[in-house]
């Protein structure tokens, strides 16, 4: 009797195990950076800003004192609150020179580079994110971030990151040159020949 039960049980089991499916919900892996980048490209044009003339409606009140309209050449020099004739201010130019980067940031950049060369872009991106949190004003970090996005073929984001680097690298000629050359390269990859040419011209200024 018992044996019969077990036989039935066993055969039933054989049938059932076939149907026992794993009901795990699988969530697809996705990278949201591309879609976001596309959205922004559509909605956020950088405005042209070439308004040298004052807009209508600004009232300029004449003074009693006579006004001299010529501008002396010497004016800008002594007026500058900074002795050095540099475009960057504060302690930024020296503080962010690559040689002065902290060992922590250097170590992270090295690791990220290794990951990038191995084609492990996600890891490289995570590591660069750590570097950026520690040294958010370091252009080199943005240079490397742009490189990784370029590898991921996210041209628009790659260029924007490099531009962020440019904004932070004011006064660092060598860095600016590298950044503009990278931008030229990215634009070339993106099929923008004229843009690449423009970027190369900018790079040649440094």
């Amino acid at each position, binding site marked *: 009797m018992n044996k019969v039960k077990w036989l*039935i*049980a066993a055969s*039933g*089991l054989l049938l*059932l*195990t076939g149907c*026992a499916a794993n009901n795990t*919900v699988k*969530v697809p*892996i996705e*990278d*949201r*950076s591309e879609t*976001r980048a596309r959205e*922004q490209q559509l*909605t*956020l044009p*950088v*405005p042209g*800003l070439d*308004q*040298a003339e*004052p*807009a209508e*409606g*600004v009232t*300029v*009140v004449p*003074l009693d*004192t006579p*006004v*001299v*309209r*010529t501008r*002396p050449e010497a*004016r*800008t020099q002594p*007026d500058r*609150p900074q002795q050095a004739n540099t*475009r*960057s*201010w*504060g*302690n*930024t130019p020296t503080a962010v020179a690559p040689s002065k980067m*902290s060992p*922590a940031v250097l*170590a992270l950049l090295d690791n990220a580079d290794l*990951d990038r060369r191995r084609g492990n872009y996600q*890891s490289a991106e*995570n590591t660069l*994110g*750590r570097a*950026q*949190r*520690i040294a*958010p004003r370091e252009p080199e970090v943005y240079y490397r971030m742009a490189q990784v996005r370029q590898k991921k073929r996210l041209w628009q*984001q790659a260029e*924007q990151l490099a531009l962020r680097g440019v*904004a932070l690298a004011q006064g660092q000629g060598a860095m600016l040159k590298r950044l503009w050359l990278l931008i030229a390269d990215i634009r070339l990859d993106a099929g923008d020949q004229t843009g690449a040419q423009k970027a190369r011209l900018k790079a040649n200024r440094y």
Partner: protein
Amino acid sequence: MKRSWTRRLLVLFFKLTLVVAVLSAGVLVYLDAQIRLKFEGKRWALPAKVYARPLELYPGALLSRDQLKQELKGLGYRFVRRASEPGTVEWASSRARLYTRGFSFPDGTEASRRILLQFSGNRVASIRDDQGQSVPILRLEPILVGGIYPKDNEDRDLIRLDQAPHYLAEALVAVEDRDFYQHHGVSPRGIARAMVVNLKAGRFVQGGSTLTQQLVKNFYLSSERTLARKLTEIPMAVLLDLHYGKDEILEAYLNEVYLGQSGSRAVHGFGLASQYYFAQPIGELKLHQVALLAGLVKGPSFYDPRRHPQRAKERRDLVLKVLHEQGAINNAQMIRAMKQPLGVVKQRSLHKGGYPAYLDLVKRQLREEYPEEALSSEGLQVFTSLDPVVQARASAALQTTSSQLEKRFGAKLAKKKLQSAMVVTDPQTGEILALVGGRNSRYQGFNRALDARRPIGSLVKPAVYLAALENGFTLASLIEDAPLRVTLDDGSLWQPRNFDRKSHGEIALHRALANSYNQSTAWLGMTVGVDSVVDTLMRLGLKEKPKPYPSLLLGAESLSPFSVATIYQTIAANGFNIPMRAIRLVTTAEGEELSRYPLQVTQSIDARSVHLIQYAMQEVVREGTARYVYQRLPADLNVAGKTGTSNDQRDSWFAGFAGNRMAVVWMGLDDNGKLPFTGSGGALRAWTDFMVREQPDPFIATQPDGIEYQWIDEASGYLAGPRCEGARQIPFMTGSEPLEQLPCAQEPDIGETLRQPLDWFKRWFRQE
């Protein structure tokens, strides 16, 4: 006749037996299928785990000993004399030796290691490993701050049997089911023993259930005590024992068993119980802790060590005694363990549940991208940028300021509860570091940081002025602060007034913003066009397009503190729109990446215009409506911001930033009542208090290409020189400088009358 009757009876009996046999076989097959299905499939719904940012340790990091202590307390590190095992730390006056636990991050494993940290002031000076080698950087484990629970509110941290500490299995078997390794799922000896005990006691005191039966009961069956359940429990236990090894059953038991209740959250399994009672990973538990947890199985609420410490201690000591009797531990071990205190952590000190507003934000974002089912059952790992230290400072600043205001304006607030909300980001990364949704920051209620949409008042002004600067105005342009009347589309008249009820005539644009004049702002906005201001707001990062009514120019638009933060974030980041992020990464339970939210930047406002508005926003705090800031902050800490007060003084706002912190504060009443103070009287104070605690990096402006500084005569807006009375240096886009010039501008700047640039202005240029 008689024979045939018995024969018929026999046949009937045989038939009946056959039916019963077939039926029970069917039931058995069904039960067996049940057992295998659940045991081999996904056994438990695992809540998603939400982590705070991991603390980065590196030489030069701004981190005091006390801050590290806080972090390690949150992680459940034990403070010991010799750090000889993971999860321990030893302290000296300016050093700390730390034995980290290690953590498997999606981008690599941070190994468990022993390091020596040297502090110097509020910074980490050096980090060395055991070989004396300097360590450039490492990450601590991230603090688990919350989870996303399934409907039954079951929470657990899965563990493997080999992760269980010494004696846990022994203790469980010893007190719950001595014959566990011998029986076949049910234990007749155990039942007999229980019956004897029950008979002696004259009532039901012992169940005689094996661990296997208990597992079956919790795992497969409902909790009601019926005969039917009992009858299914036994065959199922036998089947379970038949199919699976003792270790597999024990491992499942370790993870299934109910061990406590935290509010609505049911604490299941030893992995989570270890965190819940000791704030430590299970593997680090000592004998006395293991004994306490094993003892809890019998009745987690009856022996609750927090509510009934005496009972819990007796139970623990009993477990220790049984372990000794069984020969698992020696006498000395037993006595030593019995001398230990219970060692249970305070419930409130647990980070879980401490960040309802932030978790709310994380959940909303996750729910947009994952089905609820996946969130509450897949054991996803969610890595956020929440900084518990910043969060603690933000809520402390709001608490302190609110109490002070209530004390000062007690009568006027008339027992109404002053509410507040705050958003803190790092403007360089766009990461949200802290979010406070109300006065009681542990209370999971109305999340004002996300959901309280209130008129932003003057907080809109930087956008108006930015639009003007993008349309040809300069900081030195003279604008009209005079009564104005605008007829609206509906025929009504709009007549804005200044806060001091006066008009100030012609005034330099930067000055009008610093002093937050309404009439000149309205005039400016009408001149540039409301549509243009709307466009600027959108480029600053506002998600929903506001209606282009003139009242928008003075902040009639209602926004949440979170939306305001997106706008100020872009200004703080020099015109780069960096979408704010709370989540860094989502991975599977195994650490496989599912989605990432990397840094996104888009230059949406020209760097030069932003530079100009930043200048004016510095003036707000140095000379304008937010001067209060420097009553408390050191003069060399550059910040910029804007106060905001809505119509009739119903909302008090401040939004502003330093180099690496941007914060938006709102204060008001939930019933939208009037406040006895303005933006600078309320929110600004809380903002400043936060910055005092936070000690952020100063904001240092970078001069973009195409910006030049000129001496300007403020009254006329003409070019001046350092020798001119009333002149100051103001940035211009190259080519937009005024053409008119005062004669004094040409005087050679030699001699003692040379005017010094403004004090704060020098600091903006360089750090001294």
